[in-house]
């Protein structure tokens, strides 16, 4: 289990990086926590590796009222510690193990586009975007790819050959929004069998599900979830409605997903599970939102 040979490039800035990517058929190395296992198992054998770890200006976490921009070299642990975005922080605690998070990058996880990974769901549910750069022959050209277009298929993102994902933007939550991330993994830190990331705003509720489709499955539940009652109490009539709403939402989520079976779980179990987790995540997000509103 040793990586195959490759030509190594260590560009010092973004322009050099995309110039190199334009010239050679190369893979980008950032954290390497997904790429290097594939190289070690010789499941990938790129002729060129473009290591961006020495490139200036690709790190950083910038937060403003509109949201958080995470640079290509920002490690999971760095973003987690920064606490810049509550949903991102919550999701990051579910990503692998602390040691992997010390090296792995947020943008790298997005580009890797594992359908069972947490971060793509966060980007998707928030309607964020990824900034992608390429060399257009004379300068660095940049495009913004919205989350809805970024995840193309399992392990496939919209980043084209020759392009480099330079940052990801996670829109900020509203002051009265509540969020939650619920998942079930076989072992702590494993990719989830299914997971649900929920955002409940005063206007409506939205979830993104992992592990139950080729890309994060986003379900806009509109006002299906009763927002006035944070934590449904089955004894109150209004809350009975809320509980029914949650069950209906869970059903809607189940219907939107197309899980597959693998050695860890059957498709039927995943479909059941994603509904359970949707209900839990929505309840928790609604509770949090209600608390934020002082309800």
């Amino acid at each position: 289990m040793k990586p195959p040979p490759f030509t190594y490039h260590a560009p010092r800035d973004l322009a050099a990086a995309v110039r190199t990517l334009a010239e050679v058929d190369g893979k980008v190395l950032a954290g390497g926590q997904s790429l290097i296992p594939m190289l070690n198992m010789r499941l990938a054998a790129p002729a060129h590796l473009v290591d961006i770890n020495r490139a200036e200006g690709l790190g950083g976490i910038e937060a403003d009222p509109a949201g958080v921009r995470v640079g290509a070299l920002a490690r999971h642990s760095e973003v987690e510690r920064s606490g810049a975005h509550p949903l991102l922080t919550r999701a990051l605690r579910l990503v692998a193990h602390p040691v992997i998070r010390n090296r792995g990058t947020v943008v790298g996880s997005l580009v890797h586009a594992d359908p069972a990974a947490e971060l793509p769901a966060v980007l998707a549910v928030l309607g964020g975007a990824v900034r992608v750069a390429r060399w257009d022959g004379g300068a660095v050209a940049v495009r913004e790819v919205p989350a809805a277009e970024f995840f193309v298929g399992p392990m496939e993102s919209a980043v084209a050959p020759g392009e480099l994902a330079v940052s990801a933007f996670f829109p900020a939550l509203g002051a009265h929004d509540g969020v939650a991330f619920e998942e079930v993994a076989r072992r702590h830190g494993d990719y989830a069998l299914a997971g649900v990331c929920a955002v409940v705003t005063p206007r409506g509720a939205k979830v993104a599900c992992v592990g139950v489709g080729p890309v994060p499955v986003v379900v806009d539940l509109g006002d299906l979830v009763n927002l006035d009652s944070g934590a449904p109490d089955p004894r109150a009539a209004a809350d009975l409605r809320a509980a029914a709403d949650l069950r209906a939402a869970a059903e809607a989520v189940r219907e939107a997903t197309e899980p597959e079976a693998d050695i860890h779980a059957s498709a039927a179990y995943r479909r059941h599970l994603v509904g359970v987790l949707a209900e839990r995540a929505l309840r928790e997000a609604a509770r949090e939102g209600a608390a934020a509103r002082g309800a």
Partner: protein
Amino acid sequence: MEHEITLIVNGTARRARVPARRLLSDCLRHDLGLTGTHVGCEHGVCGCCTVLLDGRPVRSCLTFAVTVDGAELTTVEGLAGRDGRLSAVQRAFAECHGLQCGFCTPGFLCTVTALLAENPAPTDDEVIDGISGNLCRCTGYQNIVKAVHRAAELLAEEA
């Protein structure tokens, strides 16, 4: 093509000529002769190869040596004091029987050293979460968890 790199390992600058694909784990073990860092899976799951990169634990099997040219590394060989006295974490592992075959131990020691540097008095849950990326096939973890708490005590006593 080979690359001339310098790694500051356990406080000493070490130079090596390595091809780009040389994993940091192999560079430490075979180029620098520091065989205390072990290799258990080479796909980043077992944690045997964990070393400290600029103070933070990372998988040396998921890092190319050339990427960390110039960085400071601490391996298991560098945990004891210059006088050879074992660190509090090492002593706690011995005292609590936190190792059997010893193969995963260097990875645990590096992980726990960093964990306690950041959180000197972890709760049980924090300890378990902190070591949750390291596999041990011998101990069932119970004595490792005990050792982490004991190391925290020793560090507090000696502070």
